[in-house]
């Protein structure tokens, strides 16, 4: 139950808003962090905490694309397919992923490690093709870079190739870049 495990977080979240209902997105994030998706019992519990009906929570969950209502792979690969990324190779990135993981958008590998989704613009238009894996951005992806990212993630659960604080063009003196 969220209430016991995240008691202080929930109290802190509620203190930020004059109405309880405003806490629905932050609490849904807690639920998704806990289970990997937002389960029906979690929606019911959140409704209870915020004094809402369960449908009031459900309608919010289904409006926003970042909430999952079913379990997905441990690593959620979201590839931006909007025009700006498509101009510089997002379809090719999807083909590389298919060749390596054997799955396409909307599918999960049989070991439940990876799920691929295509998504709309992630505000990374100057550094396409790009993808988000769980919380992290990976940008300007080449085939060799993709191999390293996937190997790193399978081994360590993350990769040092993820993006840091964003700046483009990269600042003068940034290591190893022209």
């Amino acid at each position, binding site marked *: 139950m969220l209430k016991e495990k995240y008691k202080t977080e929930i109290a802190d979240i509620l203190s930020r808003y004059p109405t309880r209902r*405003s806490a629905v997105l*932050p609490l849904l994030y807690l639920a998704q962090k806990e289970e990997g998706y937002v389960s029906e019992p979690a929606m019911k519990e959140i409704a209870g905490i915020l004094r809402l009906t369960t449908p009031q929570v459900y309608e919010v969950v289904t409006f926003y694309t*970042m909430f999952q209502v079913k379990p997905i792979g441990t690593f959620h690969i979201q590839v931006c397919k909007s025009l700006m990324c498509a*101009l510089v190779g997002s379809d090719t990135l999807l083909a590389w992923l298919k060749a390596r993981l054997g799955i396409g958008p909307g599918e999960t590998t049989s070991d439940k490690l990876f799920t691929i989704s295509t*998504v709309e*613009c992630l505000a990374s238009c*100057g550094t396409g093709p790009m993808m988000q894996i769980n919380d992290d951005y990976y940008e300007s992806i080449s085939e060799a870079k993709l191999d390293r990212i996937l190997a790193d993630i399978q081994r360590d659960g993350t990769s040092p190739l993820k993006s840091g604080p964003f700046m483009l063009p990269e*600042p003068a003196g940034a290591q190893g870049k022209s």
Partner: protein
Amino acid sequence: MPKHEKILLKNMETHGYTGSLADYERTGGYTALRKVLDKISPAEVTEIVKKSGLRGRGGAGFPTGVKWSFIPKDHPGPKYLCCNADESEPGTFKDRQLIERDPHQMIEGMLIACYAIGAEAAYIYIRGEFVLGAQILERALAEARAAGYVGRKILGTDHSINIWVHRGAGAYICGEETALLESLEGKRGLPRVKPPFPATHGLYNKPTVINNVETLANLPHIINRGAEWFAAIGSPPKSSGTRIFCVSGHVARPGNYEVPMGITMRELIYEHAGGMRSEKPLKAIIPGGASAPFLTTEHLDVKLDFESVAQAGSMLGSGGVTVMEEGTSMVWAALRLMEFFYHESCGKCTPCREGSSWLVQTMRRIVDGRGRKSDLETLVQLCQNIAGRTVCAFGDAEVAPIMSTLKYWRSEYEELIQQAEAAGLIQLEPAAARH
């Protein structure tokens, strides 16, 4: 390289600048806040911002000081400021850099705005995917609280201003200011019918101002250096200041370039962004994010300011400039953007919800080589029945790619349809739509 002074990106482009509070203070950070608190009245601050000519950098370009002045002066209850950090307009990636590289600049801007409108609480509505950005903002706010800039009785005055980060969860429409408020209230992000406007009935039905990240980041500089200084930059009187243009697509050096408004597209693309990435010449430009109509090579000498781009038949919008090279199918490009709008339509208004679905189906049919002669007329009719018939500006935005590509590259559509006819793949009219 640049002959002009940068304002917003200056600090972060300095070697070794980390965006920490110490770094920000070392470069004069928070002096603007000290300058106004109890020394310049809120009404005067609003007047300075009005005089500076600053207009909103989120897309609509509404004069910032004027927006503030709509807040009722004698309102007894709470008022709110919301920072719109829901950067989701395809082609735009400037706010992300302002947030992640120099968070205190926008926080100081928020404090000045709160002081001017009399708000004691502010929310930064940041798109959910910016997990790193949200962490950086939380860290910066913790620093600012510890230093007494944010919280109860800031800097020993009687003013209390609290700022919180609120993460969205993946919905383009929440960048529309009233949808943002709905979302912040814990509901589906459906735009509200206006009037009443947020200035009187905003967040929790209280007077509220919503400003974009880049707009807010300009404020400390305007306070420190004066309205006249700012008003003289760029293309006054209607387009003062710099803009951070986000250049993407087929250019040699994509990136964020801060330049005075009024430089031409040619200068931005060929001098700042390094020109085209290959031998292929330029074919099309989207000057202000996905919602802005396409322009052609004939528009390269159009000045990048609000009025000039509008006169050329497009809009400066969010500053996202996307460049496409010869060989790019304009029908395909318009379809990609249409798919975006179809995915992001919130579903509130019938013309947009149903129309976007029809538009995507019709466009897909044409691109897939199954187009029919009547499709072009269908597209135009659909577009005309969406634009101007919805609660928010999304309806006008979603028809821009199709209408503008039809205007300049109609032959590409016709060619695809003729090929489909020649291949004998024309199917009978379907008995019913896909649903």
